[in-house]
């Protein structure tokens, strides 16, 4: 036990003496949280909207006006021809082109049915999907408005029954993306910093030759590893605290659930990440190698965490892979506790899986770490 204290003392001294490292540990994550939380939004705004009005009637103008009234669309111009519109889309000057056919007003009144042409720049598939939904909604609303107008004309007809869905968004009523993103990004920061620091740390001692000096001492493997990892565990918890404060102060993210529960889960979660970091450092000889491997895992962990893309829409095999992604569990727990106010029983499955993961990773890492070659 005393031996471990000597190592912890040494590690903390080295961390806080490293003037280049301190900002990386504490300032960069804060900047990232602020920047990413504002930038990483799924909302598509300022859609460049162009149209080709072949009809030039009050009805067609009313439709365009609907788009103009929306916050999401910047109505640009009336293109004289389809060719011109295509050329502009190729140049990226326009995202969406609405093609209003000739006799739009006449056919609408006569046949009560008409096709509108919509061209969407789908280089960014996700954005195109969102744009499509927006357009459909606006056209639908316009349609209803039109029906009412038409009904006034012929009130003998049987009124159509309109079935409408009224979405109710629970837990994040205003669909505030920051509320959704901040907890997730906080997870990333805690994960990345602790993974990189722990992965790099022991390799660094290999590089400078001090690890050999340590291996010649009678220190026990477990003592050395606990002493080495404990400081990073503390840093991870510190980062969580800073992140939660920022989430509250800057982003007003609600904290519905229990803070203690969040800390309990995080304290176990960080052990998993430290185990992975340690495992990486066992297999590498230089900090450069460790860095690349840590990156490899980080990218997979992040993109398969359900933070940016829903896990439900991944292929089956990918969904199975995400079961082994610790970041996924942390993102879920973070959102459950912070936004839904989930309790201990709700997150128990996550907690148990994470605990098991921690045991396996650290067990492997300690087993793999050899004082003798």
């Amino acid at each position, binding site marked *: 036990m*005393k031996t471990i204290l*000597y190592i912890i003392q*040494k590690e903390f001294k*080295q961390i806080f003496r490293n003037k280049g490292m301190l900002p990386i540990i504490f300032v960069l994550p804060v900047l990232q949280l602020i920047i990413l939380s504002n930038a990483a939004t799924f909302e598509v705004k300022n859609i460049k909207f162009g149209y080709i009005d072949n009809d030039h009637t009050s009805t067609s103008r009313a439709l365009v006006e609907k788009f103009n009234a929306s916050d999401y669309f910047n109505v640009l111009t009336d293109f004289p021809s389809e060719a011109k519109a295509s050329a502009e889309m190729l140049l990226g000057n326009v995202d969406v082109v609405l093609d209003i056919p000739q006799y739009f007003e006449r056919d609408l009144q006569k046949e009560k049915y008409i096709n509108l042409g919509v061209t969407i720049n789908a280089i960014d598939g996700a954005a195109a999907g969102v744009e499509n939904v927006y357009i459909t909604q606006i056209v639908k609303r316009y349609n209803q408005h039109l029906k009412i107008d038409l009904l006034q004309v012929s009130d003998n007809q049987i009124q159509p029954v309109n079935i409408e869905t009224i979405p109710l968004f629970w837990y994040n009523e205003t669909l505030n993306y920051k509320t959704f993103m901040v907890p997730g990004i906080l997870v990333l920061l805690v994960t990345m910093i602790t993974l990189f620091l722990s992965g790099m740390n022991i390799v660094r001692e290999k590089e*400078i030759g001090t690890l050999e*000096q340590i291996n*010649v001492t009678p220190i026990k493997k477990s003592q050395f590893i606990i002493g080495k990892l404990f400081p990073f565990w503390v840093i991870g918890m510190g980062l969580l605290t800073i992140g939660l404060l920022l989430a509250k102060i800057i982003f007003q993210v609600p904290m519905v659930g229990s803070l203690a529960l969040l800390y309990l889960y995080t304290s176990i979660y960080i052990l998993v990440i430290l185990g992975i970091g340690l495992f990486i450092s066992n297999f590498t000889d230089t900090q450069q190698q460790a860095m690349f491997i840590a990156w490899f895992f980080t990218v997979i962990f992040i993109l398969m965490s359900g933070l940016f893309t829903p896990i439900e829409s991944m292929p089956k095999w990918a969904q199975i892979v995400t079961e082994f992604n610790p970041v996924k569990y942390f993102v879920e727990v973070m959102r459950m506790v912070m936004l839904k106010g989930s309790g201990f029983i709700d997150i128990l499955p996550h907690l148990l899986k994470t605990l098991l993961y921690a045991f396996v990773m650290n067990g492997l890492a300690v087993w793999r770490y050899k004082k003798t070659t």
Partner: protein
Amino acid sequence: MDNDKVIQVEGLTKMFGDFTAVDAITFDVKKGEIFGFLGANGAGKTTAMKMLIGISIPTAGTANVAGFDVFKQAEDIKKNIGYMSQKFALYDDLTVKENITFFGGIYGLSRNVIKEKSDVLITELGLQKVANQLVASLPLGWKQKLSFSVALIHDPKIVFLDEPTGGVDPITRRQFWEMIYKAANEGTTVFVTTHYMDEAEYCDRVSIMVNGKIEALDTPKKLKKQFNAATMNDVFLKLARG
């Protein structure tokens, strides 16, 4: 087991794939002796030493260090030996005092003992003025002397020195050997590798390794006689050239 012999090695071999780095070496070292372990670069000195200090598992042979078997009791060996590698291996970003405290702590010394030891050590090395400076700022010679003292902090039975004087000036080398003699006089066995043949003359006994094998082993005086050479340098050249 012979109480007088602190290192007993027989047929010790280390192979890396097909390459035999250390080829069945046999020797022993007596208590309190300064044993010079010589050889050209790549002769296998460091590999042999790593097996003796318990950080490299031998492929074949037997070795007993400080009364413990290198195969089964490597961790017990580590309690009883000190080691100074050819690469400076203290922490550059810790101060002189912090390095001493850290290694003392790892060897399980109590706070009081560490405090006493570091005061004595710092005074002996004349490092009072820089005791609270980062080790990185010290000249190489001072660093090496500090490494040696740290390797002795837990009063080991044997201290292993791997090219301790590489790259230091002649005056510091002189001082370094005075420290070695002092340790030997106090009963510590010194196992030292070196490239400097004048240093070989200071050793009680010397072994010379060529291509993984020990080709000669005796006192410097007898070796010079055996090879009909005026200095250890000539002995070494005759052997190393084959």
